[in-house]
């Protein structure tokens, strides 16, 4: 193929993916590395990329220590109970103690944060959420990143990390291709911060046909955070911990502001409150430590999101659907009505379009809710991602290996969706994680850890051949048939994605099986995954755009494979409402109060699984 090879050499810090995590990393890296060469490689255009491309109407992670509202440890306890105990509390504490400084800077940069007219403090939506006019959230943080970076390469799909050939298990940069020119790009770098996205569209969506892109998490979140790290042999954690969202039906409009600020509530098809009746039985499954309604009322401890999903799913399966959001009361107040609409227009315009199309005015009727297909990601209310080191002043030995947010591959850092065990970071927390990773990456270089890196031409050429293989394959085999997409020697990326979604759905706990799986199903699914991976060698791409979809699919498949291994390993039902292990329906703290850690051998593709201890914050005095 006539594509050029473009080499960018002598990079100190390469940021892969510039959503909120990547922009935070690039911005902060300049402060700690004023003489360093900072480069961003972004799949789309940094002005509108990542999960926040369309805007946000709230910042969901803000302590408000300035206003005497919360301390970092309060947030750790909140995220811990929401995730049924399975979090990295060192990383959470570290993120929470820094996150307010990111938010205060956003305000200085021009992001319109709403204020409570009575107190002057930021307008709270809930205990952790503040309300913003965030249509331009992404362009604003992009400006910060642009001011810090030496070079920004937009429209580069990064496919692989480069590995050092002089020292084992050390990163040396990344490679990819330009989705416009088709050129092959090589980035040789002393350190890499992977801030790419989590995985949407790996489970079959509820929508069909044209609506298949109306997913909760962005369709361009192709699991590259995981695909890149897994291929490099980095250890991953909590990949079984997929998330299911209760959202407005079809449009997947967010419910946070509705529940917390507008004080709307849910009821079943008969107009009844339904959650509480499922809780006694559920308490027997998960134990009183995790579900104690009285204690929750007394202490404002939240009922974990997954458990509320469980009640929703069971009520619908019992035949008393649909579940409605009761908006008719709140929307009589014109101010609250405006907030309700602007909430969608600010971050999920599609929901406003749907209500306009169906003549739903929530003032006059209560809209339907649904539970979504599962997603695998690490920055919302779940914590899939890489097994990363924490900060030295917080982390116990098992969680610390030298540099904050460094994966188990030397010089390879993570932020946002890429870091495991840190749910509830959201936009501000992901930006903060990027900043933490950037400081640590500078230190890694300053400590002389990146000396003597060697990348052979052989490695660069091998990756190049691999990247363009789907186009070569297409060129050879498309002429085997007269026309069309049915070909005995080739599948296209959409066909591969459909196959992945169907098997994830049926064997790994998607919507059509009410989020249920078991050991037998998982083993069948894994066998089918292996065959799918073989067939991906016969993936055909007609043009550069399809080549982009081909590599997104490969990253999604690598992500899904890890999800299977982790789901099989954790033999319990830790998060009813996210998924169920039908052969182990109870939460089992005796055997599974641990974090799951995997590693895929980059040479053989074999997985090894291990348990890692789960540390919790306790009062010093209680010792």
């Amino acid at each position, binding site marked *: 193929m006539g594509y050029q090879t473009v080499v960018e050499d002598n990079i100190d810090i390469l940021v892969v993916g510039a959503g909120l995590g990547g922009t935070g990393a690039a911005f902060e890296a*300049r*402060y*700690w590395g*004023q003489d360093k060469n900072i480069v961003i490689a972004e799949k789309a*255009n940094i002005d*509108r990329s*990542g999960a926040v*491309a*369309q805007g946000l109407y709230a910042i969901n992670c803000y302590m408000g*220590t*300035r206003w005497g509202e919360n301390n*970092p*440890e309060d947030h750790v306890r909140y995220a811990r109970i929401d995730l049924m105990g399975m979090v990295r509390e060192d990383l959470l504490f*570290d993120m929470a*103690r*820094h996150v*307010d*400084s990111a938010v*205060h800077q956003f305000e200085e*940069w*021009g992001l*319109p944060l709403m204020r409570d007219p009575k107190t002057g403090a930021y307008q709270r939506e809930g205990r952790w959420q503040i309300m913003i006019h965030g*249509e331009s959230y992404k362009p604003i943080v992009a*400006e910060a990143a642009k*001011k810090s970076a030496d070079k920004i390469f937009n*429209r580069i799909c990064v496919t692989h990390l480069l590995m050092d050939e002089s020292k084992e298990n050390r990163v040396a940069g990344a490679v990819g291709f330009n*989705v416009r020119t088709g050129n092959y790009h090589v980035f040789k770098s002393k350190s890499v911060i992977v801030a790419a996205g989590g995985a949407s569209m790996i489970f079959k969506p509820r*929508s*069909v*046909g*044209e*609506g298949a*892109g*109306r997913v909760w998490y*962005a*369709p361009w979140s192709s699991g590259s955070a995981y695909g890149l790290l897994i291929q490099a042999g980095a250890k991953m954690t909590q990949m079984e911990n997929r998330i299911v969202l209760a959202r407005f039906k*079809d449009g997947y409009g967010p419910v946070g502001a509705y529940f917390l600020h507008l004080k709307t509530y849910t009821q079943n098809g008969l107009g009844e409150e339904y959650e509480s009746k499922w809780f006694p039985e559920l308490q027997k499954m998960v134990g009183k*430590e995790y579900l104690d309604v009285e204690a929750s009322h007394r202490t404002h401890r939240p009922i974990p999101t997954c458990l509320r999903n469980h009640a929703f799913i069971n009520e619908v399966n019992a035949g008393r659907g649909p579940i409605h959001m009761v908006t008719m009361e709140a929307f009589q107040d014109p101010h609250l009505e*405006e907030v309700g*609409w602007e909430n969608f*227009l*600010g971050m999920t*315009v*599609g929901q406003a*379009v749907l209500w*306009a*199309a*169906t*003549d739903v*005015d929530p003032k006059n009727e209560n809209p339907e809710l649904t539970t979504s297909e599962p997603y695998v990601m690490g920055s919302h209310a779940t914590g899939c991602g890489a097994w990363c080191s924490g*900060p030295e*002043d*917080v982390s*116990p030995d098992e969680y610390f290996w030298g540099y904050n947010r460094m994966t188990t591959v030397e010089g390879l850092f993570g932020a946002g969706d890429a870091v495991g065990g840190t749910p509830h970071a959201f936009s501000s927390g992901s930006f903060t994680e990027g900043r933490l990773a950037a400081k640590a990456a500078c230190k890694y270089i300053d400590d002389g850890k990146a000396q003597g890196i060697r990348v052979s031409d052989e490695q660069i050429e091998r990756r190049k051949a691999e990247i363009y293989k789907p186009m070569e394959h297409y060129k050879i085999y498309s002429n085997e048939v007269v026309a069309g997409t049915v070909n005995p020697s080739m599948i296209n990326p959409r066909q591969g994605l459909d196959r992945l979604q169907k098997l994830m759905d049926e064997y790994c706990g998607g919507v059509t099986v009410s989020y249920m799986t078991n050991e037998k199903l998982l083993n069948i699914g894994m066998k089918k995954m292996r065959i799918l991976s073989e067939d991906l060698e016969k993936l055909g791409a007609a043009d550069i*755009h399809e080549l982009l979809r081909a590599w997104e699919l490969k990253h999604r498949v690598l992500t899904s494979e890890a999800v299977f291994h982790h789901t099989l390993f954790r033999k319990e039902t830790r998060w009813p409402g996210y998924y169920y292990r039908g052969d182990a329906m109870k939460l089992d703290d005796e055997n599974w109060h641990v974090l799951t850690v995997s590693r895929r051998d980059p040479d053989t593709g074999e997985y090894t699984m291990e348990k890692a*201890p*789960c540390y*919790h*914050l306790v009062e*010093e005095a209680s010792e």
Partner: protein
Amino acid sequence: MPTFVYMTRCDGCGYCVDICPSDIMHIDPTMRRAYNIEPNMCWECYSCVKACPHDAIDVRGYADFAPLGHSVRVKRDEERGTIAWKVKFRDGREKDFLSPITTKPWGKHIPKLSDVSGPDKDMRDSQLLFNEPKYIRMDEGGLHTLESAGLKLKEGVYY
């Protein structure tokens, strides 16, 4: 709600192609105008709609669940720092919304960190980030540590 492009308004400038996060706005080689090449990978994020200088791009709700006859139009004004929405229902009712998108002029209030004085050794050895600890509480308070919070991390089950 995938996007579509009005034939008579598009001049093929490519702003939408440049901004689309999903890489699905492309220029048709025959028409020399933009169109959505992959509607089932569209997130209805409106990035292209906002970027179009000719109001040539609009959105029609996803065919699998949205009936025809609606529109949600937007005008993003960088200079004024506002965004205006017009929601038109299938039955003809309309709603208008106006919100700020920034409180500051673009390009002037974000610091260039190569121009600020770099961190000293104490700062490097600390757990602080740029502008910290000041920007955490906006006062003289320090960064939280486990020690300052009277906490420790312990293995096991504790709630």
